[in-house]
Structure formats: structure tokens, C-alpha cells
């Protein structure tokens, strides 16, 4: 039983007079524990697919079954609940709340979880565990502007993990990062996938990044062009070990700000 089933997904937009057919009938199954990379040129429909898979948008027609629930016809509020429980988002621009500590950022999704009446202590514990799993427990009190781009993205991953979602949806997660940090982030994804069996959907237009996954789905003109397993999967851990050690900056004292080239979107909201 696949964890995610997409059948003949169609999405049409109306922009002014013309009709944009972003998705023209996509079919896809994803099993639990897979690490699927979705690639394609811009305008191929992969972003639209991501929005629908992430329950941010509804398809014009077709069916989308997530974890046994047909979510393609759900109301906005129901979709919000699905997003909260079953989906973890990682964005290109991190989208961390500024002037909010890493821990509080990670905790945020738990605040919108109405069924599990969690006490503050319980939320803190869950958030700390999530931060630990991305190796940032020592940065819990740091604000986003005190963290490097890679660290910010790891906080964002921790935020996506904190609700223990069914799938992790990463939209160009390395788009704002340099090569080394990109590999670090992929390393986290790979170990989450291998060690904890978390299903990951990675949207990227970089083919080398896509090769960290177990399977590549290539989009073109709103349809799936190819869907094949990765023959020679890249291993982020090995690559990191082979890289020269980073000119690691000494651990930042709290309060210090990282002066680094600003990321696109500012990285924080």
C-alpha cells in the first residue's frame, strides 16, 4: 500500500484570458521509506505538483490519496490539519520567524496541533529532540540571524520533523546554499531516510542533488517524462568525508551575528 497515490492529476490556472495547464495528468505512487527526487525545468509543473502534494492547493481534477485519505476534495481547514499532521515542509528560503529562537521556531507547528493538548514542557521536549536530530541542540537559543544558512536550513528541517509527519516535502532546499552546506543538508536527509525510514520528496532542478535520492521523477510540460530508480546513488556522508575539512569558524558566542552573504528572501520572515 503506497503512502502517497496520485491518479491523473490535472491542474489548470486561468491567468487573464489564457489557460495555463500546469499539470496534464500525472500518475505516481510513493511507498513508505522512499526518497523521491522530483526534477524538471522551470514551468514543467513540478512546483504545482509540490503544492498539491503539500496540500497547499487542490487539483482541478484527479485524485490524491495521502496515507489512506483522499485529500483532493478536502476543505481548506481540513487541508490545514493534514498539513499540520502529515506533512513537513522544507523551503528554499528557510522561512524561519525572525527574532524567534531556533527552539521556538521548531515548536511552532505543535502550537497549531489542536488534538494533542501538549503542555509547554512537552512541546519543548519534542522541539529539542527535533533539533538534536539535525545536530543543533546547542543552538536552541540562537536567533535565525545568529545562524549560518546551513544551520538555518537545519532548523527548518527540525521544524518539519517535529510533528512526526508522514512525508517530508523539500522544495529546492539547497537552492540558497553553497556546495558543502548543500551536501550537509542532503546528508541529514539521507540519514533521516535511512535510519528513521522517513519518506522524503525532494523537488530540485539540480540533477546532481536529485541523485541523493532513491528514485528520480522527471517532469516535462505538466507530465511525468521519466520515473526511474537511481542507479548510482550518491552518499552524502562519504562525500563529506572526502571533502577538505571546512574552515570551521569557532563556535559563535550567543549574541554574535553571522556576517554572511544574505540569502535570497532574507531567509527569515
Amino acid at each position, binding site marked *: 500500500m503506497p503512502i502517497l497515490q496520485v491518479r491523473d492529476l490535472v491542474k489548470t490556472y486561468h491567468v487573464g484570458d489564457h489557460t495555463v495547464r500546469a499539470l496534464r495528468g500525472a500518475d505516481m505512487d510513493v511507498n513508505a521509506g522512499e526518497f523521491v527526487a522530483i526534477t524538471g525545468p522551470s514551468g514543467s509543473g513540478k512546483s504545482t505538483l509540490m*503544492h498539491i502534494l*503539500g496540500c*497547499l*492547493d487542490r487539483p482541478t481534477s484527479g485524485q490524491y490519496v495521502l496515507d489512506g485519505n483522499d485529500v483532493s476534495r478536502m476543505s*481548506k*481547514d481540513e487541508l*490545514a*490539519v493534514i*498539513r*499540520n*499532521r502529515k506533512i513537513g*515542509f522544507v*523551503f528554499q528560503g528557510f*522561512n524561519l*520567524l525572525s*527574532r*524567534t529562537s531556533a527552539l521556538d521556531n521548531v515548536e*511552532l*507547528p505543535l*502550537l*497549531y*496541533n*489542536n488534538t494533542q493538548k501538549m503542555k509547554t514542557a512537552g512541546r519543548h521536549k519534542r522541539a529539542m529532540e527535533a533539533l538534536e536530530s539535525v545536530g543543533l541542540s546547542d543552538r536552541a537559543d540562537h536567533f535565525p540571524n545568529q545562524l549560518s544558512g546551513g544551520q538555518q536550513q537545519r532548523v527548518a528541517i527540525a*521544524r518539519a520533523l517535529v*510533528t512526526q509527519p508522514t512525508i517530508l516535502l523539500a522544495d529546492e532546499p539547497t537552492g540558497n546554499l553553497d556546495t558543502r552546506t548543500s551536501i550537509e543538508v542532503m546528508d541529514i536527509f539521507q540519514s533521516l531516510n535511512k535510519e528513521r525510514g522517513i519518506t522524503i520528496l525532494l523537488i530540485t532542478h539540480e540533477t546532481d542533488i536529485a541523485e541523493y535520492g532513491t528514485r528520480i521523477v522527471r517532469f516535462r510540460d505538466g507530465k511525468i517524462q521519466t520515473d526511474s530508480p537511481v542507479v548510482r546513488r550518491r552518499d552524502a556522508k562519504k562525500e563529506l568525508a572526502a571533502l577538505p575539512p571546512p574552515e570551521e569558524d569557532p563556535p559563535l558566542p550567543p549574541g554574535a551575528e553571522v556576517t554572511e552573504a544574505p540569502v535570497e*528572501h532574507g531567509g527569515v*520572515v
Partner: protein
Amino acid sequence: MSILMTLRIALKALNRNKLRTMLTMLGMIIGVGAVITMVALGKGAQTTIEEQVKAAGTNMITVMSGNFSQGGVRMGQGQSTRLRPEDAEALRAVPGVQYVAATTETRGQVIAGNQNWSTRVEGTDVDMPLIRSWPTRFGAFFTQQDVRAATKVAVLGSVVAETLYGPDEDPTGQMIRIRSQPFRVIGVMASKGQSGTGQDQDDIIFTPYTTVMKKLQGQQHINRIVVSAATADVQPVAEAIAAELRIRQQIYPGDPDTFMVRTLEEMAAVRSETARTMGTLLAAIAGVSLLVGGIGIMNIMLVSVTERTREIGLRMAIGARGKDVLLQFLVEAVVLSLFGGMIGIAFGFGLAEAAERFLQWPTTIPANAIAMAFGFAAATGVFFGFYPARKAASLDPIEALRFE
């Protein structure tokens, strides 16, 4: 999301932009402050009037000749009926009437030694101090004998006595001249202060009404009759007086009264009405400032929603429902207005206190005014915060996340 968490997020968001928060609240502070001050002033005026009515005795009835409420063209002298001393005497027999004082009034220059003063000279009857529960400070009030003989005796109001003889001087036995006629001072009234209409009640001289009629005015009629009823239930007594006077004045049934019977309650009601009108006017001003404050909040909330579009998008992506976002911004607006309201209440108290201390305006802040101001502030926050909050809640998460 729990309301407590929402509140914490709102406080955090407001804390992030302190100056802006303060400036936005300023509108509410002024608005609520104005409401409190206006209520305090209005209530203060009303309380003062009520106290004055109580002090004057609520059982007082005044009969005046002429009828101002009569419309149309007034006929000549023959038409208007005059009140005579006999009318006053006749009222003593009306059931429910306790005291009666025929009253006629004039103004005159008063001379005592090298001092002089222009004042009101009220010719009245011996019952006057009883009706208005007004004791003398020095000497005594004139007697029935003085009234019958129209003797030239005068009882001075405290202001007149002070002006002519200086404070705390007992002028009893001194001679004064009113309109060049010699009068003997036989007493000074105790100080009574301002009347409800703002008239200085102590700037007056009392003499027997007969003296004023015969020696000062040379006329046969009196201006009014002041009556006190035996009980506080004055209305039936007032009606009985009117009936008696209609008979005495020979007014045919159906014809309008040629006199007016007014109770103090009625007069107080008129004055309270005036105070209330003032209060309404002031409340309208306060309402306008609240409106302006509310618009300020709406303005800032709209800016805030636009600024935080990406934050809203993110919150939605991680599971915030429309109503969560709506509540977040609504709570922020209400917190803004309530904080402003609280400071405004303190500000209003200060203003009322200042008005009382420096302008000598009586103020009373009723207990429910605080609750009312709080309610107004909250309502303003909800009303003006709703539109921006709904705008935030109706954002499309995809668009919001893309927003630059």
C-alpha cells in the same frame, strides 16, 4: 492554537515594534481618556443638580403669573392675570400646602455708610426661611407684624452684608438705604451658595413683600407665590393649587391657565435634561476620537498584515487554519486597543481630577464607567481589527509564501 498562546504571539508581535505600537495606542488612549473625562464631567454636573434640588427641598412649588407655554399672539394687559396677596392667602387653605410665601422682586441700589451695592430685593413672607430651610446668621427674620405693617426692615444676604460691612461683622440695628429709602437691618442670612441655575443666592436682601409692593414698587400685585407641600409627593398639591387659582382667577373650563405652577422637580428635570444633552454632545466627541483611534488600529493592522504576508504563509503551510490566523490578528488588534484603553482610563482619571482641581468643575466617575470604557475599547479593537484579520486569514498560502 490555544487563546493563551495566541495572546503570547500577539504580545511578542507588538513588542517587536514598540514605537509603532505606542503611536497606534495613542489614538485609543485619547479616545478612551476622552470618554472617561466626559462621563466624569457629565455625571458630576448631574450629581450637583440633584444635590442642589435635594438641598432646596423637593417639596417646593412655585406659582408664577403669566403662562410662557401659551402659544400664539398674546393679548394686551387686560388678558394677563396678576397674582395678588389674597391669592397667596387663599392657597393656605389648599390641602397638602404647608407654607406659603407671597413673593415680589425688584432690584435696587443699597447704600450703607460710604458703601453701596446693587442687588436683588426680594419681598417675601415670614414662611420663606421655613420653605427654603434657610436660617439667619445674625439677628432674626422679620415677623408677621412687619408684613402687616409694611415696615422698612431688611434681612441681608451674606454677600450683601459682607460687601457693605465686611466679613463677620454683625450689622443688626444699622440703617441702610434701598432706593434712597431708609431700612433697618434686623438680620443676616446664613450663606447658601449658588443656586442650581448658577445664581448667587446670597446676593440678596429680604424685606416683607408688603414693603416692596407699597414702598418700593407701588403696585398691587405680586410676582410669584412660593409654596411648600407637606409631603414630597408634590404633584397632587400642584394640581390642587392650579384648580384653586383657576376658580379665583375665574378661568372658564377649557381656557388655558394664566399662571404657571412649577415644581422644583420639574425645573430640576429641565436642568438635568440640559446636562444630559451636554453629556450626549460630549459623548459624541468622545465617540469620534474612539473612531479615529480605531481607524488608526485598522491602518496599522493592515500594514502589519502586508509586512507579515510570508509569516502568514508559513504559518498556514505548517497547519494554521484560516481561523487561527484570523484570531491571531484579531487578538493583536484587541490587545492594542485594550492596552490603549487601560492607559486611556488612567489618563481620563487624571484629566477629570485636573478639571476638578484647577477648574473647580465637579466630577464623578461612576463605577461602571471603567467597565464601559473597557468594553468600548474591546469593541473598537474587534470592529476595526476584523477587516485586517480577515484579509490575513483569506490569504492563499502559496501566494503568501512567494510574497517578496
